[in-house]
């Protein structure tokens, strides 16, 4: 189970933070274009999922899986979107994202007086706490050979 990379978007589509750990192949477009593509696609997928759903949905879109990776999505009530790419055998990723929001994002970004909402995150403390949090989670540890 590994974690490849992480994106954090705010309600308006601005990418607040991006981090990668094991990404082997780049997408071939700039970081900016990639973030816009990611946000736009997620928005479309979310709306598609809720339209096509044969039942009343509570949560809506949770993740998609390909043969090589899975993309997990978590949205907070305030419109913050956490997107993480893991390998196919990861479990409990939703909880991971939830904990990440509560324990790392809120503690070290929301409570940081320097950060203005809507701008990218530059704090070194946030980066190191995020790194620590991801590395000590069981999902990151074992490589799926």
């Amino acid at each position: 189970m590994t974690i490849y990379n992480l994106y954090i978007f705010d309600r308006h589509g601005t990418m607040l933070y991006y981090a990668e750990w094991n990404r082997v192949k780049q997408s071939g477009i700039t970081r900016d274009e990639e973030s816009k593509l990611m946000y736009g696609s997620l928005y479309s997928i979310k709306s598609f999922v809720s339209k096509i759903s044969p039942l009343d949905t509570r949560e809506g879109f949770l993740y998609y899986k390909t043969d090589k990776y899975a993309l997990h999505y978590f949205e907070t009530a305030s419109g913050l979107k956490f997107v993480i790419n893991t390998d196919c055998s990861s479990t409990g990723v939703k909880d991971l994202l939830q904990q990440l929001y509560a324990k790392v994002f809120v503690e070290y970004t929301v409570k940081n007086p320097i950060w203005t909402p809507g701008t990218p995150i530059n704090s070194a403390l946030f980066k190191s706490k995020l790194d620590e949090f991801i590395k000590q989670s069981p999902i990151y540890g074992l490589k799926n050979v």
Partner: protein
Amino acid sequence: MADEGLLEYLHFELVNYCVNDKKENETNQTQSSKISTLEYIGFSTGYRLIERLTREMPRFKDELDTVKFICTDFWSSVFKKQVDNLRTNHQGIYVLQDNTFRFLKQISNSSQYLDIAPAHVVFTCGLIRGTLANLGINAIVTAEIVSMPSCKFHIQVKH
């Protein structure tokens, strides 16, 4: 009990308002006078707060005892922990050291953002000064930040 985060949010809004706010019809307020506004707010708060905290306590034996009280009970009630280190030269100078100062904890733990850190300890300097003033000790309180989140407060008692 109120949520712990409330004081942090309020404190940094206070700092932003006093220090960074650029009003249209701003008078010639220099940086230092904005800081003294913030310090004065801390002073008034400390002055009143200590009245409430020491309601049922007897008078302090001496100055050192008062400062020790600030390091333990007072610091615990405001910052949820005690001061980590207290030093004195027994002639009116005291140094209080807090290794994980509550208002600096979330900003950084290295030297990033060191330049704006002083604005965030000014309120606490005023708080300590107000507390001491109402306990009968006139002092000057300054702060020194070498590496976040630890911070030292220097108290100089005026005799």
